C-alpha cells in the first residue's frame, strides 16, 4: 500500500478551499446599523435633504459613517446600535411627517460577492434582535363570524327537523322565532344538542310568535377566542416557516394579541404583507331558484332569504346560497398549477375528510347546478382622522369562478380564475393554513438583542477557547499528525460556515455553540485514524504502510458512526421545527463536511508531508 494521493483529489481540495473562503467571507463584513429615510406623500428626496440630515446629525453631535443617497432612499450608516436609535428618533422629529424614518441594517458586503450568491448568516434574535410586530385578533369579527355560523347551523337544523321558524343574529347570540310553543320546545332541545355551551331562554311571545333567545356565555366566548388565537399562532408559524425565516419568536401576548419577532428581516413592509394576509376561498352553490331576482336585489337591496349577493371580477352581480360548502380552514394542501383544459393558472386543492364529505354530498345532489368560488381578501386601511391613526379593514369578496357541476367530486379538485401571482400566493397561504380570524398589526418596532452584550461576548470567547483547547491538545498529543488534524479541522470550520451562509441559516448563540460542539465531536474521525496508525506501528508495520492502513481501516468505522449520527440529524430536521431545525441543520452540515475533511483532506495533507520520503524511520504521531 502506498500513500499516493491522486492529483484530481488535490484539485478538489483546492476547489473546496476556495469555495469555503469565498462563501464564508461575507460573514466578516459587519452590517452597519443604519437609518433609512424614504419620502412619502410626494416629498422630495434629494441633495437638499441629504444636507439637512447631515446638518441635523452634526448639530445633535451624533457620529455617522456615511450618508448615501439613492433613487428611493437615503441611508445613514451609523457607528453602533445606540447612535442608530438616537439618530432615528432625532431625524423622525426633525424631518416631519412627510418622511418615513426606519431602522435598518445595511450590508457592507462588496457587490461582486453578492453577485456570486454569497451572503452573511443572519444573526438571531438573541444576538442582534430584529423586527417586532404586535398583532391583534379582531375580536368583533370573531364573534360575528361565530354567531353567523350558529345562525346557519340553527337554520339548517330547523329545516332538517321540519320545524318552522326563523333565526337571526341578536345581541350576544341568536334570536330564534317559532310558530308554536310546541315547536319552541322541540327547537330548544335541538339547539341544546347542537351547541351545548349556549344558554337558551324563552322570550316573551305573542299569539303566533314564540321567540327563543340563544345566548353565548362569556366563558364560551373566551374559549372560542383562545381557540382562534391558537389556530392563528400555528398558522403564523407555518407561514414564517414557509418563507424560510429561521428562528422566529411567535407567542401569544395578552387576551387577543400575538407577538411576532423576526431576526434579520429589515424590510418590514414585506414581512407585514405576508403575516397579515388573509386571502382565502369559499365554495358556495349558486342560488338558481332566485336567479331572476338578481337585478331586483341589486337595485332594491331586497335579497332573498337564504342568499347573499356577490359580484364577479368583471362586476356581474350573482346570488349565491348562504350556506358555505367548504372554506379555507378545511383545505389541507394547495398547490399552484396550470389547468390542463384551459391553460390558465389554477390552484389545485385538497380538502380534509370532513370538507371532502360535505363537498361530495353537495356535488352529488346538485349535478348541473353552478358552483361558485369566492375569493376573500381583507384589506387593512389606515386613515388619519383628527391627527390620529384610525385602523379599519375592508373585506373584498369576489366570485372568481362559477361553473356547472359536471360530475360529483370530493376531496381533490382544481380552482381557476386567478392571475398567476395570485394563485401562487393563495396556494402558499392556503397551505400554511388560513387565519381563522383576521389579525391587524397594531405595533411594529425594532427590538434589541435578547441577550446582554456581556453574555454575547462571553459566548463568543468560549467558542474561541474551545477551539484553542482542542487544537492545542492535538499538537501536544499527536505532534505532526496533530498539525494535520488541526488543518483538517480548520477547513471543516470554514466549510460549515460557508455552507450555513449559503443556506441562509440564522446564527444564534446556542447555534454557534452547536457548531463548536459538532466540530469538537467530529475530530473523533481523526482520533480514530491516528489511533489506528499507532496501532499498526505497534504491530510492526512500516511507517508509510501504517499511514495507509490506518486511513483504510478507520474509514469504515467513520462511515458507520457518521451515517447513524446523520440519520438522527435528518430526522430532527424533517420533523423538528424552529430552533430544533436550526440545530439539526448545523449537525448535518458538520457531519458531512467533517467526513470529507477528516478522511480525504487530512490524508491529502499527510501525503504531502510524507509521500516523498522513501525511507521514513519513524512517524511523529
Amino acid at each position, binding site marked *: 500500500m502506498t500513500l499516493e494521493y491522486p492529483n484530481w483529489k488535490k484539485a478538489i481540495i483546492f476547489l473546496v478551499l476556495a469555495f469555503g473562503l469565498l462563501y464564508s467571507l461575507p460573514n466578516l463584513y459587519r452590517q452597519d446599523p443604519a437609518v433609512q429615510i424614504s419620502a412619502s406623500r410626494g416629498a422630495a428626496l434629494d441633495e437638499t435633504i441629504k444636507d439637512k440630515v447631515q446638518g441635523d446629525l452634526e448639530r445633535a453631535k451624533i457620529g455617522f459613517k456615511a450618508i448615501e443617497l439613492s433613487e428611493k432612499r437615503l441611508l445613514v450608516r451609523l457607528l453602533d*446600535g*445606540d447612535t442608530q*436609535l*438616537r439618530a432615528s428618533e432625532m431625524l423622525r422629529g426633525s424631518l416631519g411627517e412627510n418622511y418615513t424614518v426606519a431602522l435598518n441594517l445595511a450590508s457592507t458586503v462588496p457587490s461582486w460577492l453578492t453577485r456570486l450568491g454569497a451572503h452573511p448568516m443572519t444573526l438571531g434574535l*438573541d444576538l442582534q*434582535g430584529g423586527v*417586532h410586530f404586535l398583532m391583534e385578533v379582531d375580536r368583533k369579527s370573531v364573534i360575528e363570524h361565530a354567531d353567523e355560523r350558529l345562525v346557519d347551523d340553527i337554520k339548517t337544523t330547523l329545516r332538517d327537523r321540519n320545524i318552522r321558524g326563523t333565526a337571526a343574529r341578536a345581541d350576544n347570540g341568536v334570536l330564534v322565532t317559532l310558530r308554536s310553543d310546541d315547536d319552541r320546545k322541540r327547537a330548544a332541545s335541538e339547539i341544546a344538542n347542537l351547541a351545548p355551551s349556549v344558554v337558551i331562554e324563552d322570550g316573551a311571545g305573542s299569539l303566533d310568535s314564540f321567540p327563543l333567545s340563544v345566548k353565548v356565555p362569556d366563558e364560551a366566548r373566551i374559549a372560542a377566542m383562545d381557540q382562534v388565537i391558537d389556530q392563528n*399562532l*400555528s398558522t403564523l*408559524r407555518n407561514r414564517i416557516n414557509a418563507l424560510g425565516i429561521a428562528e422566529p419568536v411567535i*407567542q*401569544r*401576548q*395578552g387576551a387577543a394579541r400575538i407577538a411576532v419577532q423576526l431576526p434579520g428581516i429589515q424590510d418590514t413592509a414585506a414581512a407585514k404583507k405576508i403575516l397579515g394576509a388573509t386571502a382565502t376561498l369559499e365554495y358556495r352553490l349558486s342560488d338558481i331558484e332566485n336567479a331572476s331576482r338578481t337585478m331586483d336585489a341589486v337595485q332594491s337591496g331586497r335579497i332573498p332569504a337564504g342568499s347573499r349577493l356577490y359580484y364577479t371580477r368583471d362586476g356581474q352581480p350573482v346570488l349565491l346560497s348562504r350556506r358555505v360548502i367548504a372554506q379555507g380552514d378545511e383545505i389541507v394542501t394547495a398547490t399552484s398549477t396550470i389547468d390542463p383544459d384551459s391553460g390558465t393558472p389554477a390552484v389545485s386543492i385538497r380538502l380534509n375528510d370532513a370538507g371532502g364529505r360535505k363537498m361530495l354530498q353537495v356535488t352529488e345532489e346538485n349535478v348541473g347546478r353552478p358552483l361558485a368560488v369566492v375569493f376573500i381578501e381583507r384589506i387593512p386601511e389606515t386613515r388619519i382622522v383628527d391627527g390620529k391613526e384610525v385602523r379599519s379593514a375592508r373585506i373584498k369578496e369576489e366570485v372568481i369562478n362559477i361553473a356547472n357541476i359536471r360530475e360529483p367530486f370530493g376531496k381533490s379538485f382544481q380552482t381557476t380564475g386567478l392571475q398567476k401571482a395570485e394563485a401562487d400566493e393563495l396556494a402558499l397561504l392556503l397551505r400554511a393554513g388560513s387565519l381563522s380570524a383576521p389579525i391587524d398589526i397594531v405595533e411594529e*418596532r425594532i*427590538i*434589541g*438583542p*435578547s441577550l*446582554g*452584550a*456581556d*453574555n454575547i461576548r*462571553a*459566548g463568543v470567547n*468560549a467558542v474561541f477557547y*474551545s477551539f484553542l*483547547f*482542542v487544537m492545542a491538545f492535538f499538537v*501536544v498529543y499527536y*505532534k505532526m499528525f496533530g498539525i494535520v488534524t488541526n488543518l483538517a479541522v480548520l477547513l471543516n470550520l470554514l466549510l460549515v460556515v460557508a455552507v450555513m451562509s449559503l443556506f441562509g441559516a440564522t446564527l444564534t448563540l*446556542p447555534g454557534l*455553540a*452547536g457548531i*463548536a*460542539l459538532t466540530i*469538537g*465531536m467530529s475530530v473523533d474521525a481523526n*482520533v480514530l485514524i491516528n*489511533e489506528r496508525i499507532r496501532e499498526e506501528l*505497534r504491530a510492526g508495520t512500516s511507517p508509510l504502510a501504517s499511514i495507509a492502513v490506518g486511513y483504510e481501516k478507520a474509514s*469504515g*468505522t467513520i462511515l*458507520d*458512526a*457518521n*451515517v*447513524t*449520527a446523520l*440519520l*438522527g440529524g435528518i430526522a*430532527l430536521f*424533517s*420533523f*423538528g421545527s*424552529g*430552533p*430544533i431545525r436550526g*440545530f*439539526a441543520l448545523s449537525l448535518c452540515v458538520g457531519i458531512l463536511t467533517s467526513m470529507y475533511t477528516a478522511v480525504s483532506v487530512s490524508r491529502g495533507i499527510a501525503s504531502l508531508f510524507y509521500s516523498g520520503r522513501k525511507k521514513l524511520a519513524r512517524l511523529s504521531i
Partner: protein
Amino acid sequence: MNLFPYDSKFDFMRLRKVSLGIAIALLVIAIGSLTVRGLKFALDFTGGTVVELKFEKEVDIGDLRGKLEAAGFESAQVQTFGASNDIVVRLQPLAGQVNAEKTGDSVLAAARIEGNPAKLTRADFVGPQVGKELAEQGVIAVIFVAFGFLLYISIRFEWKFAIAAILATMHDVIICTGYFSVTGKEFDLNVLAGILSVMGYSINDTIVVFDRVRENFRGLHRLEAYEVLNRSVNQTLSRTIITSFVALLTVLALYFFGGSALRGMAESQIIGIVIGTLSSIFVACPLLLWFGTTRIDLLPRAKDDADLARRP
C-alpha cells in the same frame, strides 16, 4: 505522548451485572423524578409576563438586568424596544403573582433608577415561545430517529446490535433529562438542543465500539463472545477516552467561559458526554452479551459467499 496504556486488559464484562444494575437504577431515578417532579420549564416553554417600561433617559441594559436579578427575577430577558429608553422585559412571575399588572408593578419597583424615572406602559401575560406542536414533533422525531438507527444498524451489523445501541442511547437521553428534573435546574430550548446533541454523540460512540466488536468477531475465530467484547472495548479504549476528552474540553470551555446563556446547554452536554461514553462500554456491550450475540450473527452475507465462490 500517551494518555492511556495501549495494552490494557480490563475485564469489563465481569462487571456487567453491576453496570447494568447501576444503569437500571439511574433510569428508575430519572423516570421517577420526571413523572413525580417533572421539569422546571423556562420562559420559552411556559410563557410568563411581558412588561414594557418607558424611561425618561437612556438606560444601561446590563445594569437593569442586574437590578431585576437582585429583586429575585431570575433569567429575565431585557431588551431595548424601538428606542434606547423603551425597555421590554420578559420574565416568569414571582411565586403567587398571578396578575400581570402586579408583576408589572414589582418590576417597575425593582427597576427604579435614581434620576431616571420610568413609567409602566404595558404588563401582559405572554404565551410560550414554542407551541405544543414542538413536543409532538419532538416525540415523532425521536421515534423516527430510533427507527432509522434500528434499520441502518440492522443492515450494517445485526438486529441485536441495533437494539443494544438504541437502548444505550435512550438510556443516555433519559438520564440526561432526568438530571435536570432531579436538580430542578431550568430546562429551556438550549438545554433541549444540548440533550438532542447528546443523542448523536452517544450513538456515534457506541457504533465505534461495535465496529471493533464486529471486526473482532469476524477475525478472532476461536474466542468466546465474552472475550471478544472485552478485547474490543480495551482496544478502542484509548480512542474512546481521547475523543470524550476532546469533546469534554469543548463543552467545559462553553461551561466556564460561556456565561449564563450557554451554561444550561453546556451542563446537559457534560452529563451527556460522560454518560454516553460510559454507556457504550458498560451498557451497550453487556447488552450484546446478554442478548447472546455470537460469531454466527456476523458471518459474511450471501453476497460475500458468492464472491468467495467466484475465486479460483
